[in-house]
């Protein structure tokens, strides 16, 4: 079984803080990580590799040259092959343009039974690239995968809904997107880390290598444009109720009662 796992290197947005004086983002020291949901996708692929023979995992990403380290980490966790699509021409892509690039790369990879993505990336939270790859490859998709099982050429999936889940059968090849509930990702192993740098390789492909039409990628190929960005205004400061005893709590409830909040 050939599995392609699409990953993205993202800044750990949990670590991003706002400068209270200037209202700008403090990015110093914000670590780059493999996007959480993508780790779940990779873990599920690795579990299949643990369980069945002849599973080959290719990790694919689009990003700047620094994304090499994310792919090495995926290799250290146990992926077999790593491909980085890196080209100035893809910079500024929206999800439509990104899926065009990844689709072209997947076509160049050639054979696959399963394409696994994370549901969404924490720096964009769009959840669009997975389904858009599926559309462009004309494959069935199941998103929000919280549990899955492979039998023959069929994958039986639990797809999470807000108030439960659906059980869906889909035939391979297909596109799946993983959520946190699917599994807990393993760490890279120490020997995996040394192998990732010494024995394994990250292939770097340009836009030319994947033979993609430059008109449908990058900033200029994107149907959506960012008109402006701004920092949300914090709400004004409220009232601090002094102390931390019965009187304090009593006062709070008196105010709430006065204002008809309770």
């Amino acid at each position, binding site marked *: 079984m050939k599995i392609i796992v699409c990953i993205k290197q993202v800044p750990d947005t949990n670590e991003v803080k706002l400068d209270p004086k200037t209202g700008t983002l403090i990015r110093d020291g914000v670590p780059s990580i493999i996007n959480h949901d993508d780790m779940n996708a990779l873990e599920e692929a690795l579990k299949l590799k643990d369980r069945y023979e002849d599973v080959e995992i290719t990790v694919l990403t689009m990003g700047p040259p620094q994304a090499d*380290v994310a792919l*090495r980490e995926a290799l*250290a966790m146990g992926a077999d092959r790593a491909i980085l699509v890196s080209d100035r021409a893809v910079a500024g892509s929206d999800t439509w343009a990104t899926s065009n690039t990844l689709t072209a790369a997947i076509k160049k990879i050639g054979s696959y039974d399963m394409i696994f993505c994370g549901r969404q990336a924490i720096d964009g939270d769009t959840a669009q690239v997975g389904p858009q790859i599926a559309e462009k490859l004309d494959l069935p998709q199941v998103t929000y995968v919280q549990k899955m099982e492979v039998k023959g050429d069929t994958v039986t999936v639990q797809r999470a809904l807000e108030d439960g889940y659906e059980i869906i059968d889909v035939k391979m090849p297909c596109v799946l997107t993983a959520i946190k509930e699917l599994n807990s990702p393993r760490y*890279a192993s*120490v*020997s995996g880390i*040394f192998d990732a*740098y010494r024995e394994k390789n990250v292939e770097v492909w340009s836009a030319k290598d994947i033979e993609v039409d430059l008109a449908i990628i990058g900033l200029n190929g994107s149907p959506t444009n960012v008109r402006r960005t701004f920092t949300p205004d914090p709400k004004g400061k409220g009232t601090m109720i002094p102390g931390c005893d019965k009187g304090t709590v009593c006062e709070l409830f008196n105010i709430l009662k006065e204002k008809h909040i309770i």
Partner: protein
Amino acid sequence: MNFSLTKEQEMVRKLMKEFSENEVKPIAAEVDETERFPRETVEKMARYDIMGIPFPKQYGGAGGDNLSYAIAVEELSKVCGTTGVILSAHTSLGAHPIYQYGTEEQKMKYLVPLAKGEKLGAFGLTEPNAGTDSSAQQTVAVLDGDNYILNGSKVFITNGGEADIYIIFAMTDKSKGNKGISAFIVEKEFKGFSIGKKEDKMGIRGSSTTELIFENCIVPKENLLGQVGKGFGIAMQTLDGGRIGIAAQALGIAEGALDECAKYMKERKQFGKPLAAFQGLQWMVAEMATKVEAAKLLVYSAADKKDKKLPFSAEAAMAKLFAAEAAMEVTTKAVQIFGGYGYTRDYPVERMMRDAKITEIYEGTSQVQKMVIAAKVLK
């Protein structure tokens, strides 16, 4: 001169940081409080090849280097001194002598499971009357046919009782003093080998420190490690390497305390401003941070020398001497900065202070390190 880590080492650090934060830190206080050996952590470390970082893959190791191993001990010790020493004693003292001095058969039989983390290792040199003067060994080994018969006892053995494989030193010829000491690989199951009293310690309380007792213990002849009479050299060289591990442990404890201080000083307010705004305390942390950084360079440099197969004995001693004293100083100051809260078990700095003390004592006291260093300078 190159002061930056390789990409592999950086990734090992990232792995160990995440592992320590997620798997080790949450149980550190409980392990200390209840004196519980964290067996589950050892199993997890085995899963990620952390138990055999510096050994080649053919012997079950991760194929890494000593600097990566030191980083692993450092990161574990940042959150839990106990876990740091379990890994250090296992790798440097339990597994390394077999890698260095063992026959191919011994390596396959003992090093492979140790490096894979299926078995845990320990090292028995110290005796009630042979501490710093380790040549005064009273445990004896007598050859009887195909076996050596061991009699005597060892004390203060890290991983004692928990370990499966022990490197044990004993006199094969009392008349020869130092040159009459030999090293043996002893399995926990060997007849006549038992575990004695478990120490109730000030710090590293989750680590098991016990007495080992040999009463006509039967050790097959093929478990002699190295040559007869060469045990003292094996012990000393093993300890040279072990000191890098302990220095890394001390470094980690100091860094952990410094991190806690930095966090606390920004949160805690007195006289209407955070502690971080007081110059007197700023100067304290500046000194602490400088000591930590100096210790780090000494530790990494010693590990790097070992990786490059350069002489590292004095450097390892310097690293351990300096890092251990830095750990003691930094953790003591950390408790001071935390004030009354620092003295309570609500915060981890008092545990770090208790854990730090042992690094000035085991695998050669600070005084022994000075002897080693002076001997190198004055030779």
